[in-house]
């Protein structure tokens, strides 16, 4: 049922409209508030956002290229003088969705190291955080607790899910403190600034375009996905479908793996038993090495592959010399929110929507990034952007 509908959506020019009409569950959902909202109960594809993100990849970001976490793409600077406070030592609060995967673990270390620097500089006094363990309801409580305490001078939120955190973020905004949202967004622009890399469409497109360019027409591609229903991941797949739809590649299937290496290896092995797989598209690089090993163990040639900037994959890539790309969902974005908080509390201008650069790592840059991260554990992200922090490399290496 899903595949027919997916095919339906991508085949028809009016796919979105038609598919919406076919859905009985949320037929009359209003389509007007197209902020960053996901279309309710339906395909995760918004043409305008897709076009915008793909265009943003080619825009030169403002700011110093050696500090990508402070760069911004087409920023619209806003005045924050209303939040300026004297005396430094601000209490900054952070509601984290979770540290339940290596990407978030890496980013969280980077953020803490950045906070230490700001604390030594006297900008931040106390840094409080709560972790919701991926539970939306828990995170709503966490945010409420910070707001009710009345002790936060600024509140940083990394939402667990886009739509569901919206009311809580609105409440936080209404309390009058500056609110900084990063990574996943929410369906309101009440936050002082929303920090994120270009986004899921750009990620999925980087990966899909690489496969289209590097595979002969008629080649077969297997898509490996983590889990359904998460917007940042669904956008990646939606963009890939858009690009594969216009190509001559044959998509063998898309499978959910939970990011579990054993599941990935098992699934890829089964596909290889039934025929050749020429390319692998992944919506996140977790377990990418297991996919590659499935080819090794089956005695098949390496596929053309889109992984992620996780070091285990990049090291395997170099070792095997396969044709690959590492799309990046910029991990250095974890530095930006605390820096933004101090800027806002100093009354400095910040972009209303702070779009960070998001460039994939290509073969030409592979050696360089591996060199820079030589000491790092395998489940670490190459573009973590913390090399200049005093805690480097111990904080990440000996975590």
């Amino acid at each position, binding site marked *: *049922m*899903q*595949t027919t509908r997916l095919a339906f959506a991508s085949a028809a020019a009016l796919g979105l409209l038609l598919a919406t009409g076919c859905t009985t569950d949320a037929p009359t959902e209003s389509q007007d508030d197209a902020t960053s909202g996901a279309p309710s109960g339906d395909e995760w594809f918004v043409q305008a956002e897709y076009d915008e993100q793909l265009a943003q990849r080619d825009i030169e970001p403002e700011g110093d290229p050696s500090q990508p976490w402070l760069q911004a793409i087409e920023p619209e600077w806003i005045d924050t003088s209303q939040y300026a406070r004297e005396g430094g030592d601000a209490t900054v609060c952070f509601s984290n969705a979770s*540290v339940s*995967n*290596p990407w*978030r*673990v*890496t980013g*969280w*270390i980077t953020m803490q190291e950045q906070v230490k620097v700001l604390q030594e500089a006297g900008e931040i006094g106390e840094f409080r955080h709560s972790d919701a363990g991926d539970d939306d309801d828990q995170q709503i409580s966490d945010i409420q607790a910070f707001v009710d305490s009345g002790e936060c001078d600024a509140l940083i939120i990394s939402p667990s899910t886009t739509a569901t955190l919206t009311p809580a973020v609105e409440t936080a905004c209404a309390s009058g403190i500056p609110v900084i949202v990063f990574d996943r967004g929410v369906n309101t622009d009440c936050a002082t600034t929303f920090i994120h890399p270009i986004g899921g469409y750009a990620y999925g497109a980087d990966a899909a375009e690489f496969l289209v360019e590097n595979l002969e027409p008629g080649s077969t591609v297997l898509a490996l996905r983590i889990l*359904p229903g998460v917007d940042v991941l669904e956008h990646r797949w939606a963009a890939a479908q858009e690009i594969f739809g216009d190509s001559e590649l044959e998509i063998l*299937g*898309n*499978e*959910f793996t*939970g*990011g*579990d*290496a*054993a599941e*990935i*290896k*098992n*699934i890829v*092995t*089964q596909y290889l*038993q*039934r025929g050749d797989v020429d390319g692998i598209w992944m919506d996140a690089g*977790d*377990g990418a*090495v*297991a996919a590659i*090993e499935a080819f090794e*163990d*089956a005695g098949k040639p390496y596929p053309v592959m889109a992984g992620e900037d996780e070091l*285990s994959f990049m090291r395997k890539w170099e070792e095997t010399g396969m044709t690959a790309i590492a799309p990046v969902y910029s991990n250095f974005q974890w530095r930006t929110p605390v820096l933004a908080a101090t800027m806002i509390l100093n009354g400095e201008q910040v972009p209303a929507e702070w779009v960070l650069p998001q460039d994939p790592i290509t073969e030409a840059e592979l050696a360089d990034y591996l060199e820079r991260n030589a000491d790092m*554990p*395998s*489940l670490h992200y190459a573009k973590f952007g913390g090399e200049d922090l005093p805690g480097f490399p111990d904080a990440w290496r*000996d*975590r």
Partner: protein
Amino acid sequence: MQRLRSAAAALFGGGTGTVFALLIVILAGIFAMNPGFFEGPSLMAFLKQAAPLVILAAGQYFVIVSGNFDLSVGALVGAQVVIAARLIDGEESRTVPVLLVMLAFGLTVGLVNGLITTVLKVQSFITTLGMLLVLYGAIRLWTGGAPTGALSEAFRKVGRHGIDDVPLVGQIPWALLVMLAVGAGAILLMRTRFGRIVMATGDNDLAAALSGARVATVRTAAFVLSGLSATIAGVLIGGFAGVSAQVGEGLEFTVITEVVLGGVALGGGRGTALAAMAGALAIEALFTLFNQMALPATLRPTVQGAIIIAAVAYAARQRTRPAAVTAPATVSPS
């Protein structure tokens, strides 16, 4: 003749027949979709990947048949793989010492589960749920949130490789041999005095205790066996696919489902080790069938849930009939 019939009843009757029938139906389905599956290499690959689950099922079988649950096995498998990666850290020479550490750790976790359940009288659901939380959190505290280090080639050999260049099948995976050894061990163990006491304990612990069985010891031993099986499964899974942050997650529910599908009664006292392991094979084959059918990934849980309920309900129906006839011979479940 009588013995033959009772042997057949032991194997196929009392609800356990359902799982073999189900396994045959699923394998037939796979054959219909893709006859090539039964050519050596694919079948060997399937068995290699299913081996850890069959081994986990064998371990879980002892715990369930003795009247308990072990919800901590998934977390234990994950913990073992992460421990191995961190301690070995890519050094081949550390492989054997670390394997010994893992063995000690697995047995200890089982022992702790067993002692909390039997000595402190905490229901095993809560004991092992608590252990799940403790293992999940402790292992991440220890590694700073995500696994570090690397496994050695020697460690990975058992889960990943096998005896190569065998005629017909290509490669006989080491994992398959380990699975057969563990399976045979489990079946033989159930035929010993220990096995009979485990079964009697699960069936009616009071009666077992009155007839001189050391109920607490036997139940603790069952948990230790489960810890052992999780350790072996961890070695195989880590070897098969390497280390990842999610390894082992959710395995406990899969394994318990597989064992129950094998006709082993939750609450204890009924079911065979062979059928429990067949239940594991049936579920793994079902996942393979889904894959062969290219069933949309999001729909799979629904089909899986329906099949599990139907199979267990069917087995329950079957069981009520022979049970009525043989009621005087066997102690009826509670």
